[in-house]
């Protein structure tokens, strides 16, 4: 081993074992310059260790810990408050949705039951109207609108809250089935008639909306 190889070996003669370390040790015995360099290196390492030990107990001042813990508290309290606000917001939104849904259900119960009563109810007038042609049929136009209606002969007036109005198209002659008098000359005219139905779907009153002819 020459001086350059010894320098490149990283001065391994002290702790390392093996052929390279043996060659380095042999070189140290024969080369005074490298031996002196090695001595200086050992001295340097000793001084570095001394320097390390001198500041081995050094640590950050306690104020750093205080600042960090203060920041920690602030941060996590902020997070907690933010989470609480988010939860409260969602709960408020959910409560609003429930309230809105409840309102819709109540509204439907108040106004929609009349539709349910009217639609399936078979009435003689509409049946005869349908029999007169495919275009004829009934349409619910109002839940309760009994103004300008004429009472059908023989019908008993019911409670106004339970009535509904259906618009139907029929031949004028079919009105005779309701007990009304019909001019024979216009018996084949198609007319629109609003029928006031009671809770059972039976017509109580009528009014002529308009004639389609």
């Amino acid at each position, binding site marked *: 081993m020459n001086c350059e190889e010894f320098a490149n070996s*990283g001065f391994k003669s002290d702790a390392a074992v093996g052929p390279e370390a043996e060659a380095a040790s042999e070189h140290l015995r024969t080369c005074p310059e490298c031996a002196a360099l090695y001595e200086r290196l050992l001295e340097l390492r000793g001084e570095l260790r001394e320097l*390390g030990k001198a500041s081995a*107990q050094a640590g950050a*001042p306690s104020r750093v810990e205080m600042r960090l813990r203060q920041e920690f508290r602030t941060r996590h309290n902020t997070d907690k408050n933010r989470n609480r606000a988010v939860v409260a917001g969602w709960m408020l939104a959910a409560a609003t949705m429930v309230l809105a849904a409840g309102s819709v259900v109540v509204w439907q119960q108040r106004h929609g039951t009349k539709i349910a009563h009217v639609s399936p109810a078979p009435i003689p007038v509409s049946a005869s109207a349908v029999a007169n042609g495919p275009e004829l049929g009934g349409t619910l136009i109002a839940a309760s609108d009994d103004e300008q209606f004429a009472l059908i002969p023989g019908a008993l007036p019911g409670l106004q809250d339970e009535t509904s109005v259906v618009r139907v198209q029929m031949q004028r002659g079919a009105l005779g089935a309701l007990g009304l008098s019909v001019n024979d000359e216009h018996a084949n005219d198609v007319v629109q008639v609003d029928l006031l139905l009671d809770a059972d779907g039976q017509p109580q009153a009528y009014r002529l909306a308009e004639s389609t002819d």
Partner: protein
Amino acid sequence: MQIESQERDDVLLKRSAKGDEDAFKQLYRRNQAQIYRFALRMTGRAWAAEEIVQDVFMTLVREPRKFDPSRGPLTAFLYGIARNRVMKHLERQPRELPLEYRSGDNGTSNEIEVPDDRTPAHWAELHERRDCVRAAVLSLPPEFRETVVLCELEEMSYEEAATVLECPVGTIRSRLHRGRALLLAKLEMLRDPPKRANVGF
């Protein structure tokens, strides 16, 4: 850096992330000293080391999920942040080479002096030599300086230093070898300055 302590660090960090202040305190007290010493030995300034420690642990407070246990122990993660801060500090003040490690508030030294029966002259010589070594270390290029600090002053093994510095063990070996050679040269200059060095400056 034992596996058990790594697991404990992980657990503590998880608890800390959930707002457990006691867990954060334990994490801080376990790791702050080595980060502080590293920063102090790299910068040579107590106030800078204090700032760096604060920045490092502030990252743990603000972004605990940045730490990925699969990439290494928490210590290496903290050293990584500290290295970045040290490099930024050195970029800002590349020419300043303080000779003393002084703490910021009361001016007391961070070194622990052990009283014995040696003479004041001996202590003065010891201090002078220590200052020379410290100045020589601080004058090393950062990549050699951090290797010398970790392997010689912190007495880490090559493997531990390689984990902290995120480089192969061979790189640590060669940097240390080169760093020692540079230190020897600088110490010779500091202890026995050539006369021509004083001419023209």
